């Protein structure tokens, strides 16, 4: 098999996860589903070097960066109308091998950068259409004091922001680092709704230490939801998903998207077909095994944004294994939200002005 060189995403497994993997290996065995669930999520394997159709280095191939006075604001992206993505750092406690940002430049924003972003969020031309920010990365909870500064700056300079969402896996990757510095971010911020979007892909990841951190967040009034990734040979079976969503419901973690693994370089071995994802979601939804309160939405992360495959969304499949997806995004709307957005090569505009996009399917 031809090799796909130039993959520079190093293996990084937190000391906490290393300890857990050893314990699970001792308890369940090397061939167990439980051990493999962690091992394959974090261990760098030769599969990543396989030459496959998945060639993108980023999950969005369109330009998304926000600009102020025509200067690109580092760490800021806008794809949707009323929310902005802020990435204060690219550091994570551990590297998921299917990371969307594996090939991004590594940086951590400095205090002045954060001030510039907060001022942009509250600026005259932006504030009327911006009520929410998603702070992700990297894992922003890994630098809690800088994140706290960002939150304070947003409160001071962008009072239009009412919802702050934070994307983090720190609770399952290294819960020992979730301490008072982290909890302090969510205290004494009246009028702000905080949400943490996490990602738990397998029931084995509900470690005792992780559950304690979730409970602490709930005490502070923080809402927690999970966007899970459908990963081949890790959680692509109905029993695993039922158990996963049952535990989430029990812990009050809201199910959000169940994402199809994105078509990026080095991820082919993680990717099921879209059809399998739809079938598994149908089974979850229609089986009666789990409550309707615990059912996720299956979603594809395409070059033009998230799309949920409702009836009529998938238009056709070509001989290159790509699926044409119909979106409800309008090109004109998109340009209005972010005039610097560039139409990706994979996307086209239909006769009603809606965007369609080609999306590479996976394999079962």
């Amino acid at each position: 098999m031809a090799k796909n060189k130039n993959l520079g995403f190093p293996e990084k497994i937190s000391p906490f996860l290393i300890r857990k993997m050893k314990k699970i290996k001792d308890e369940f065995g090397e061939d167990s589903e439980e051990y493999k669930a962690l091992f394959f999520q974090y261990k760098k394997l030769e599969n990543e070097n396989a030459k496959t159709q998945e060639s993108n280095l980023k999950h969005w191939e369109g330009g998304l960066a926000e600009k102020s006075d025509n200067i690109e604001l580092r760490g800021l992206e806008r794809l949707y109308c009323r929310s902005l993505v802020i990435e204060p750092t690219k550091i994570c406690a551990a590297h998921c091998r299917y990371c969307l940002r594996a090939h991004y430049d590594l940086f951590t924003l400095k205090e002045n950068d954060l001030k510039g972003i907060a001022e942009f969020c509250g600026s005259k031309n932006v504030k009327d259409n911006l009520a929410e920010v998603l702070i992700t990365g990297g894992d922003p909870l890994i630098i809690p004091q800088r994140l706290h500064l960002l939150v304070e700056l947003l409160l001071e300079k962008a009072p239009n922001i009412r919802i702050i969402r934070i994307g983090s896996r720190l609770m399952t990757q290294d819960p020992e680092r979730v301490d008072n510095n982290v909890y302090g971010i969510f205290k004494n911020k009246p009028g702000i709704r905080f949400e943490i979007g996490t990602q738990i892909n397998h029931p084995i990841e509900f470690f005792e230490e992780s559950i304690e951190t979730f409970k602490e967040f709930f005490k502070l009034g923080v809402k927690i939801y999970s966007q899970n990734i459908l990963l081949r040979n890790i959680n692509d079976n109905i029993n695993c998903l039922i158990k996963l969503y049952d535990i989430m419901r029990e812990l009050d973690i809201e199910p959000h998207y169940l994402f199809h693994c994105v078509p990026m370089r080095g991820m082919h071995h993680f990717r099921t077909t879209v059809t399998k994802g739809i079938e598994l979601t149908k089974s979850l939804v229609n089986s009666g095994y789990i409550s309707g309160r615990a059912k996720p939405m299956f979603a594809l992360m395409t070059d033009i944004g998230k799309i949920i495959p409702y009836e009529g969304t998938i238009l056709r499949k070509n001989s290159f294994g790509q699926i044409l997806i119909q979106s409800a995004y309008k090109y004109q709307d998109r340009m209005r939200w972010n005039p610097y957005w560039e139409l990706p090569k994979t996307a086209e505009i239909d006769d009603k002005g809606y965007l369609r996009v080609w999306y590479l399917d996976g394999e079962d």
Partner: protein
Amino acid sequence: MYKVKSPNIYASEIAQFLNAKLIGKDFVINHPSSPKNFSDNSLFYLDKDDIYPKERLKKYKEILILISKKIEILDENVSFIIVNNPRLQFTKVINEFYIELMAIEISQSAKIDRNSQIGRNVLIGENSVIGPDVSIGNGTKILNNVVITGRVNIGNNCFIKNSSTIGSEGYDFEADEEGELVHLPHIGRILIGSNVWIGANTTIENSAVDDTIIEDNVKIDDLVQVGANCIIRKGTKITAGVILSHKVEIGENCLLAPNVSVRNSVKIGPGVIVGIGSVVIHDLDENSVYVGNPARFLRRK
């Protein structure tokens, strides 16, 4: 204030936090240390003039050094991150990764007048007293046994250490017809900017009528007396034991070394350094260094 913690953090993560490159192996660092006293899995910094502890390094493993110039790697147990101003970057790393701040709360034993105005995220420690005409900005931390009374405005993110007094009645008496000393009530305000540090057992006096002013980013050490109606401009550092009589005005970005005394109504220009133990009795010109008793011009900066 905080407790020290020992998380296991990869050296590469510290490099990424500093937007710098890790030179050498990646391993876990779990505590900060110094070039004279380090141990396995620790981090320290070397300033330009510091000596590279070559022999000692042979005894320990997995050491990370923040350094300003490239250095030949002599030992695979040592990794480097090259940064401008290693001490500053070391400070940032410790702040972010190796201390856990205490919970922000107002202590049960603190006495806070209901007419005072307290911002968000303000910490007030045990037995501290906050008077009715006091306003405290967001994020300010006031430790234990601090007394703040009179008309006092404190900005955001200030830090006030144990047992300091802000709003101390000014020492000002006038003899009456019978020679009795009568105290003039000090009804002036104390205006403290943002990001001001006030050390332990420091006293700041109200003035008779006008204001005592301490501007943004002023850092005052322990055991300092700031007399009534003093004005301390932005970014000035006043170290331990300094005595400022009343109506002293100090310009921006000055440094007063320990135990400096300043006579009343003296003006010190911006950018002045006054050496240890000096006694300042005349106005001092800007951007110069003064030492001695009485303080004399030593050199331009």
